[in-house]
Protein backbone atom coordinates (compact mmCIF):
# COMPACT_ATOMS: atom_id res chain seq x y z
CA UNK A 1 0.00 0.00 0.00
CA UNK A 2 1.46 3.29 -1.12
CA UNK A 3 1.20 6.58 0.68
CA UNK A 4 -1.30 7.84 -1.87
CA UNK A 5 -3.83 5.07 -1.44
CA UNK A 6 -3.33 5.17 2.33
CA UNK A 7 -4.22 8.86 2.35
CA UNK A 8 -7.06 8.39 -0.12
CA UNK A 9 -8.68 5.63 1.91
CA UNK A 10 -8.87 7.96 4.91
CA UNK A 11 -10.51 10.80 3.02
CA UNK A 12 -13.08 9.53 0.57
CA UNK A 13 -15.11 12.49 -0.61
CA UNK A 14 -18.55 11.65 -1.88
CA UNK A 15 -20.78 13.38 -4.39
CA UNK A 16 -24.42 12.45 -3.95
CA UNK A 17 -26.46 12.35 -7.15
CA UNK A 18 -30.15 11.58 -7.39
CA UNK A 19 -30.83 10.02 -10.76
CA UNK A 20 -34.61 10.09 -10.42
CA UNK A 21 -35.12 8.15 -7.20
CA UNK A 22 -38.00 8.48 -4.79
CA UNK A 23 -36.00 10.36 -2.13
CA UNK A 24 -36.12 7.44 0.26
CA UNK A 25 -32.51 6.49 -0.44
CA UNK A 26 -31.46 10.13 -0.47
CA UNK A 27 -32.73 10.85 3.01
CA UNK A 28 -31.11 7.67 4.31
CA UNK A 29 -27.82 8.64 2.66
CA UNK A 30 -27.99 12.09 4.25
CA UNK A 31 -29.01 10.55 7.57
CA UNK A 32 -25.72 8.62 7.52
CA UNK A 33 -23.93 11.97 7.78
CA UNK A 34 -25.97 13.28 10.72
CA UNK A 35 -25.18 12.84 14.44
CA UNK A 36 -26.50 9.33 15.06
CA UNK A 37 -24.47 7.60 12.34
CA UNK A 38 -21.84 10.26 11.70
CA UNK A 39 -20.01 8.88 8.65
CA UNK A 40 -17.65 11.84 8.78
CA UNK A 41 -15.67 10.16 11.53
CA UNK A 42 -14.25 7.88 8.81
CA UNK A 43 -13.01 10.85 6.84
CA UNK A 44 -15.95 10.68 4.46
CA UNK A 45 -17.35 14.02 3.39
CA UNK A 46 -20.28 15.05 1.19
CA UNK A 47 -19.01 17.50 -1.42
CA UNK A 48 -21.03 19.67 -3.79
CA UNK A 49 -18.88 19.40 -6.92
CA UNK A 50 -17.96 16.36 -9.04
CA UNK A 51 -14.46 17.81 -9.47
CA UNK A 52 -13.72 17.33 -5.78
CA UNK A 53 -15.22 13.88 -5.47
CA UNK A 54 -13.60 10.45 -5.18
CA UNK A 55 -16.82 8.51 -5.11
CA UNK A 56 -20.17 9.06 -6.81
CA UNK A 57 -23.14 7.92 -4.72
CA UNK A 58 -26.01 7.37 -7.15
CA UNK A 59 -29.59 6.79 -6.02
CA UNK A 60 -32.57 6.13 -8.27
CA UNK A 61 -33.32 4.01 -11.34
CA UNK A 62 -31.72 6.51 -13.82
CA UNK A 63 -34.47 8.15 -15.81
CA UNK A 64 -33.91 8.63 -19.53
CA UNK A 65 -34.02 12.37 -19.00
CA UNK A 66 -31.18 12.35 -16.46
CA UNK A 67 -29.01 9.75 -18.20
CA UNK A 68 -26.82 12.21 -20.14
CA UNK A 69 -26.37 14.40 -17.05
CA UNK A 70 -25.22 11.41 -15.04
CA UNK A 71 -22.65 10.54 -17.69
CA UNK A 72 -21.44 14.14 -17.74
CA UNK A 73 -21.08 14.28 -13.98
CA UNK A 74 -19.19 10.98 -14.07
CA UNK A 75 -16.83 12.28 -16.75
CA UNK A 76 -16.09 15.40 -14.73
CA UNK A 77 -14.78 13.42 -11.78
CA UNK A 78 -10.98 13.03 -11.52
CA UNK A 79 -9.36 9.58 -11.57
CA UNK A 80 -9.36 7.34 -9.64
CA UNK A 81 -13.12 7.33 -9.21
CA UNK A 82 -15.60 4.94 -7.69
CA UNK A 83 -19.32 4.60 -8.26
CA UNK A 84 -21.65 3.37 -5.53
CA UNK A 85 -25.15 2.28 -6.58
CA UNK A 86 -27.21 2.98 -3.46
CA UNK A 87 -30.59 1.29 -3.22
CA UNK A 88 -32.42 -1.36 -5.20
CA UNK A 89 -33.47 1.07 -7.93
CA UNK A 90 -29.87 2.08 -8.55
CA UNK A 91 -28.79 -1.57 -8.55
CA UNK A 92 -31.45 -3.03 -10.85
CA UNK A 93 -34.25 -0.56 -11.54
CA UNK A 94 -36.37 -1.88 -8.67
CA UNK A 95 -40.14 -1.41 -8.95
CA UNK A 96 -39.62 0.94 -11.88
CA UNK A 97 -37.99 -1.71 -14.04
CA UNK A 98 -39.58 -1.89 -17.46
CA UNK A 99 -41.06 1.59 -17.28
CA UNK A 100 -40.91 3.66 -20.47
CA UNK A 101 -38.84 6.39 -18.91
CA UNK A 102 -36.19 4.62 -16.83
CA UNK A 103 -33.00 2.84 -17.90
CA UNK A 104 -33.14 0.19 -15.16
CA UNK A 105 -30.07 0.64 -13.00
CA UNK A 106 -26.90 2.68 -12.87
CA UNK A 107 -24.73 -0.04 -14.42
CA UNK A 108 -26.64 0.33 -17.70
CA UNK A 109 -25.12 3.78 -17.99
CA UNK A 110 -21.81 3.98 -16.12
CA UNK A 111 -19.57 1.29 -14.55
CA UNK A 112 -20.44 0.55 -10.91
CA UNK A 113 -17.93 -0.52 -8.24
CA UNK A 114 -20.18 -1.15 -5.30
CA UNK A 115 -23.82 -2.18 -5.04
CA UNK A 116 -25.78 -1.48 -1.85
CA UNK A 117 -29.25 -3.05 -2.16
CA UNK A 118 -32.26 -2.27 0.00
CA UNK A 119 -35.40 -0.22 -0.39
CA UNK A 120 -34.04 1.95 1.00
CA UNK A 121 -30.80 0.61 2.54
CA UNK A 122 -30.31 1.69 6.15
CA UNK A 123 -27.58 4.20 6.95
CA UNK A 124 -25.66 1.32 8.53
CA UNK A 125 -25.54 -0.31 5.09
CA UNK A 126 -23.92 2.81 3.70
CA UNK A 127 -21.34 2.76 6.51
CA UNK A 128 -20.65 -0.87 5.68
CA UNK A 129 -20.31 0.04 2.01
CA UNK A 130 -17.90 2.83 2.82
CA UNK A 131 -15.77 0.47 4.92
CA UNK A 132 -15.68 -1.91 1.96
CA UNK A 133 -14.68 0.92 -0.35
CA UNK A 134 -11.89 1.95 2.02
CA UNK A 135 -10.59 -1.62 1.99
CA UNK A 136 -10.59 -1.62 -1.80
CA UNK A 137 -8.84 1.73 -2.06
CA UNK A 138 -6.11 0.44 0.22
CA UNK A 139 -5.75 -2.38 -2.26
CA UNK A 140 -6.97 -5.13 0.07
Amino acid at each position, binding site marked *: MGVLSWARAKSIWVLHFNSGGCNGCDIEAVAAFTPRFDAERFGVLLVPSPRHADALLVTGPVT*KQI*KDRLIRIYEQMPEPKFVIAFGTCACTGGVFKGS*YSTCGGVDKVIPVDLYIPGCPPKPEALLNGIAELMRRVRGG
Partner: protein
Amino acid sequence: MIEELISMLEREFKERVKVYKDRGRYFVVVEPSDLKRVVKLAVERGFNHLITISGVDAGDHFEVVYHLKHGGEVLNLKVKVDKGNPRVPSVTEVIPGAVLYEYEVFDLFGVVPEGNEPPGPLVLPEGWPREVHPLHKEFKEES
Protein backbone atom coordinates in the same frame (compact mmCIF):
# COMPACT_ATOMS: atom_id res chain seq x y z
CA MET B 1 -73.84 23.19 -1.50
CA ILE B 2 -72.87 20.83 -4.31
CA GLU B 3 -76.53 19.79 -4.79
CA GLU B 4 -77.50 23.44 -5.33
CA LEU B 5 -74.74 23.88 -7.91
CA ILE B 6 -75.73 20.71 -9.72
CA SER B 7 -79.44 21.54 -9.86
CA MET B 8 -78.47 24.98 -11.12
CA LEU B 9 -76.31 23.41 -13.84
CA GLU B 10 -79.18 21.09 -14.79
CA ARG B 11 -81.55 24.04 -15.07
CA GLU B 12 -79.09 26.08 -17.09
CA PHE B 13 -77.78 23.44 -19.49
CA LYS B 14 -80.79 21.06 -19.59
CA GLU B 15 -79.96 17.83 -21.44
CA ARG B 16 -76.43 18.99 -22.31
CA VAL B 17 -75.26 17.93 -18.84
CA LYS B 18 -75.49 14.43 -17.46
CA VAL B 19 -75.13 13.92 -13.72
CA TYR B 20 -74.33 10.69 -11.91
CA LYS B 21 -73.08 9.76 -8.48
CA ASP B 22 -70.42 7.13 -7.89
CA ARG B 23 -68.89 6.18 -4.52
CA GLY B 24 -70.37 9.26 -2.91
CA ARG B 25 -68.97 11.76 -5.44
CA TYR B 26 -70.78 13.69 -8.13
CA PHE B 27 -69.67 13.39 -11.74
CA VAL B 28 -71.04 15.85 -14.27
CA VAL B 29 -70.54 15.14 -17.95
CA VAL B 30 -70.53 18.36 -19.96
CA GLU B 31 -70.04 19.32 -23.61
CA PRO B 32 -66.56 20.70 -24.44
CA SER B 33 -68.19 23.90 -25.73
CA ASP B 34 -69.89 24.48 -22.35
CA LEU B 35 -66.82 23.67 -20.27
CA LYS B 36 -65.56 27.19 -19.69
CA ARG B 37 -68.97 28.47 -18.64
CA VAL B 38 -69.56 25.55 -16.30
CA VAL B 39 -66.15 26.03 -14.66
CA LYS B 40 -66.83 29.73 -14.29
CA LEU B 41 -70.20 29.08 -12.62
CA ALA B 42 -68.59 26.52 -10.29
CA VAL B 43 -65.77 28.91 -9.34
CA GLU B 44 -68.28 31.66 -8.59
CA ARG B 45 -70.06 29.29 -6.23
CA GLY B 46 -66.97 28.48 -4.19
CA PHE B 47 -65.52 25.57 -6.14
CA ASN B 48 -62.44 27.66 -6.81
CA HIS B 49 -59.72 25.13 -6.12
CA LEU B 50 -58.79 22.96 -9.08
CA ILE B 51 -57.28 19.82 -7.61
CA THR B 52 -56.08 18.49 -10.94
CA ILE B 53 -57.06 17.48 -14.43
CA SER B 54 -57.04 13.75 -15.20
CA GLY B 55 -57.06 12.14 -18.57
CA VAL B 56 -58.54 8.70 -19.20
CA ASP B 57 -58.28 6.61 -22.34
CA ALA B 58 -61.83 5.27 -22.43
CA GLY B 59 -61.46 3.07 -25.50
CA ASP B 60 -63.20 4.90 -28.36
CA HIS B 61 -62.76 8.38 -26.84
CA PHE B 62 -60.71 10.25 -24.24
CA GLU B 63 -62.19 11.56 -21.04
CA VAL B 64 -60.75 14.67 -19.45
CA VAL B 65 -61.85 15.08 -15.83
CA TYR B 66 -61.61 18.39 -13.96
CA HIS B 67 -61.64 17.89 -10.19
CA LEU B 68 -62.84 21.04 -8.42
CA LYS B 69 -63.24 21.26 -4.68
CA HIS B 70 -65.00 23.36 -2.10
CA GLY B 71 -64.33 22.30 1.47
CA GLY B 72 -64.87 18.57 1.63
CA GLU B 73 -66.93 18.40 -1.57
CA VAL B 74 -65.40 17.44 -4.90
CA LEU B 75 -67.09 18.20 -8.19
CA ASN B 76 -65.80 16.07 -11.06
CA LEU B 77 -66.49 17.65 -14.44
CA LYS B 78 -66.05 15.21 -17.24
CA VAL B 79 -65.55 16.09 -20.89
CA LYS B 80 -65.61 13.49 -23.64
CA VAL B 81 -63.06 14.13 -26.36
CA ASP B 82 -62.95 12.62 -29.82
CA LYS B 83 -59.81 10.58 -30.42
CA GLY B 84 -59.48 11.84 -34.01
CA ASN B 85 -59.21 15.48 -33.00
CA PRO B 86 -58.48 15.63 -29.27
CA ARG B 87 -58.99 19.25 -28.18
CA VAL B 88 -60.50 20.89 -25.11
CA PRO B 89 -60.87 24.59 -24.32
CA SER B 90 -58.32 25.81 -21.79
CA VAL B 91 -59.66 26.85 -18.39
CA THR B 92 -56.61 28.93 -17.43
CA GLU B 93 -58.56 32.16 -17.93
CA VAL B 94 -60.79 31.20 -15.03
CA ILE B 95 -58.25 29.22 -12.99
CA PRO B 96 -54.63 30.30 -13.63
CA GLY B 97 -53.34 27.38 -11.57
CA ALA B 98 -54.47 24.96 -14.30
CA VAL B 99 -51.44 25.66 -16.52
CA LEU B 100 -49.30 22.68 -15.59
CA TYR B 101 -52.20 20.23 -15.39
CA GLU B 102 -53.24 21.07 -18.96
CA TYR B 103 -49.67 20.54 -20.16
CA GLU B 104 -49.60 17.24 -18.33
CA VAL B 105 -52.77 15.97 -20.01
CA PHE B 106 -51.32 16.95 -23.38
CA ASP B 107 -48.12 15.07 -22.61
CA LEU B 108 -49.72 11.86 -21.54
CA PHE B 109 -52.77 11.78 -23.83
CA GLY B 110 -52.18 14.33 -26.58
CA VAL B 111 -55.29 16.34 -25.70
CA VAL B 112 -54.57 19.92 -26.78
CA PRO B 113 -55.78 22.67 -24.42
CA GLU B 114 -57.00 25.37 -26.83
CA GLY B 115 -55.81 28.79 -25.73
CA ASN B 116 -52.96 27.35 -23.65
CA GLU B 117 -51.11 25.37 -26.27
CA PRO B 118 -47.98 23.77 -24.83
CA PRO B 119 -45.05 25.70 -26.34
CA GLY B 120 -43.07 22.60 -27.18
CA PRO B 121 -43.27 18.86 -27.17
CA LEU B 122 -43.44 18.21 -23.47
CA VAL B 123 -43.37 15.32 -21.04
CA LEU B 124 -40.92 12.57 -21.12
CA PRO B 125 -37.27 12.31 -21.95
CA GLU B 126 -35.61 14.42 -24.59
CA GLY B 127 -36.04 13.03 -28.08
CA TRP B 128 -39.37 11.39 -27.28
CA PRO B 129 -41.49 11.21 -30.47
CA ARG B 130 -44.15 13.93 -30.40
CA GLU B 131 -47.04 11.78 -31.58
CA VAL B 132 -46.50 9.01 -28.98
CA HIS B 133 -48.36 9.44 -25.69
CA PRO B 134 -47.48 6.84 -23.05
CA LEU B 135 -50.84 6.63 -21.29
CA HIS B 136 -52.72 5.57 -24.40
CA LYS B 137 -53.92 2.03 -23.93
CA GLU B 138 -52.26 0.90 -27.15
CA PHE B 139 -48.86 2.13 -25.93
CA LYS B 140 -46.94 -0.89 -24.65
CA GLU B 141 -43.82 -0.78 -22.55
CA GLU B 142 -41.01 -3.10 -23.57
CA SER B 143 -40.12 -5.29 -20.65
